[in-house]
């Protein structure tokens, strides 16, 4: 942030400042609110405003990720976890706030101190723009041959990092499954099947007709959009992570409206576990294929044996890079979509257990979608 520039002279600066003030206000509301449901709703709002801000900063890929992950899936998973706990936070006594307050204030002072040495937005002399960033911008189209530099950096130049991130998602899914189970318990008792997430389904009057019809329209479109984001990631904003999250959200919406057991019948938890592992396997397998063809790990120029690469690419193509990036994006999508769905199954599968213990907070009834 350039403090010397007058704020009113530049409308985009003013816009960014307004968004930051909104973020600060939402944060205060989250901290003050004792109702967890309100906090979760505000968290979703926070991420959407943050995504808007990233758009204003010309970072559509980051904004997209923020919108689908923060606004979509983490809000849904937080809602699911509220189902397993209480509705409101207990008040904390002031004496227990002292040390956290000191820590937060110290961290804040440190960050404020560091603000002075952050280069201005878009400053061409800043290290990120002068050396690495310019290098990527100059080399990407020659070496990788795709227009979206962000995708090229993520999937090709920093392919190893992205493999690590995919593995982190996989590990998170495994951790949740180890802690909470696979969610298949929800299928165990046929009498409770429909009540798992949808107590109203067993009532006489069907309150969910409108929701079901609208969801039936929306879910195919969500799947289609997920696939579009996956295969369009080379050209526009998006890629494997966003696509996987969108597919997972489509499944979670299905579970919220039609009941968990219906979704688990269409997309079994075992398939989700297999998908999450298969994604990492596809990703790392592409790297191994490159090694077998004589290249380095994840060097997609060696995805095909050199003569075939020559034949496929023609004079200025990068067939190996194109197919390699699509292949690993498919792997990322498989891991993220199945991993998040498995995490959701783990949370949602616990709901009937808790309901049968009588500790439930009452019906969740459609309002969550």
């Amino acid at each position, binding site marked *: 942030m350039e403090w010397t520039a007058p704020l009113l002279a530049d409308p985009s600066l003013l816009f960014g400042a307004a968004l930051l003030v909104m973020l600060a206000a939402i944060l205060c509301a989250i901290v003050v609110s004792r*109702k967890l449901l*309100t906090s979760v709703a505000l968290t979703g709002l926070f991420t959407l405003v943050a995504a808007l801000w990233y758009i204003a900063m010309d970072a559509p890929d980051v904004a997209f990720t923020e919108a689908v992950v923060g606004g979509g899936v983490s809000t849904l998973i937080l809602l699911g976890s509220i189902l397993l706990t209480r509705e409101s936070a207990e008040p904390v006594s002031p004496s227990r706030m002292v040390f956290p307050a000191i820590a937060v204030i110290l961290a804040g002072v440190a960050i404020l101190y560091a603000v002075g040495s952050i280069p201005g937005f878009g400053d061409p002399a800043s290290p990120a723009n002068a050396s690495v960033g310019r290098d990527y911008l100059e080399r990407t189209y020659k070496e990788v041959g795709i227009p979206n530099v962000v995708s090229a950096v993520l999937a090709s130049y920093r392919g190893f990092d992205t493999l690590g991130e995919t593995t982190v998602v996989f590990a998170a899914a495994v951790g949740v499954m180890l802690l909470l189970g696979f969610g298949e318990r929800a299928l165990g008792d046929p009498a409770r099947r429909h009540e798992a997430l949808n107590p*109203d389904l067993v009532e006489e009057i069907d*309150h*969910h007709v*409108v*929701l079901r019809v*609208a969801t039936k*329209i*929306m879910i195919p*479109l969500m799947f289609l959009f997920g696939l579009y984001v996956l295969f369009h990631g080379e050209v526009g904003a998006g890629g494997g992570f966003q696509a996987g999250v969108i597919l997972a959200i489509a499944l979670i919406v299905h579970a919220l409206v039609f009941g968990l057991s219906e979704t688990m019948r269409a997309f079994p938890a075992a398939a989700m576990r297999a998908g999450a592992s298969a994604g990492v396997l596809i990703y790392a397998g592409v790297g191994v294929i490159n090694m077998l063809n004589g290249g380095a790990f994840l060097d997609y120029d060696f995805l095909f044996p050199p003569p075939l690469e020559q034949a496929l690419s023609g004079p200025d193509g990068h067939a190996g890079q194109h197919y390699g990036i699509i292949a690993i994006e498919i792997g990322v999508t498989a891991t993220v979509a199945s991993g998040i769905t498995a995490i959701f199954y783990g949370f949602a599968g616990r709901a009937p257990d808790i309901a049968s213990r009588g500790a439930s907070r*009452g*019906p969740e*009834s*459609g*309002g969550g*979608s």
Partner: protein
Amino acid sequence: MLEQAASIAAFVGQGLVLAGAIVTIIGSVGVLRFPDFYTRIHAASVTDTLGAGLIIVGLVLLGGGFFVTVKLLIIWGLILITGPTASHALANAAFTSHVKPLGRGDLRQPSASDEG
């Protein structure tokens, strides 16, 4: 002739975006000021459908290429499906958990029970 049509379209587009912004503000004021849950949903859904719809139609008239127009229209269609559905889901959830709408004469008393 074509230029005139374009400038008229731009003028109407600006007017529609402005109208959408005003409707959105009216809706926000309504959410804050209306007395009970159901009337507030009504105000919020005005923001959803009419406000967003006016802005999107205005943006279509303001121009952009063919693909931008198609994308905006698709977004409008999605909002027309999801907005009313969300409002209905909210009202439905409130009704099934026995939130009573205000009746005649209820406005005299301060209502503390309608937390969103």
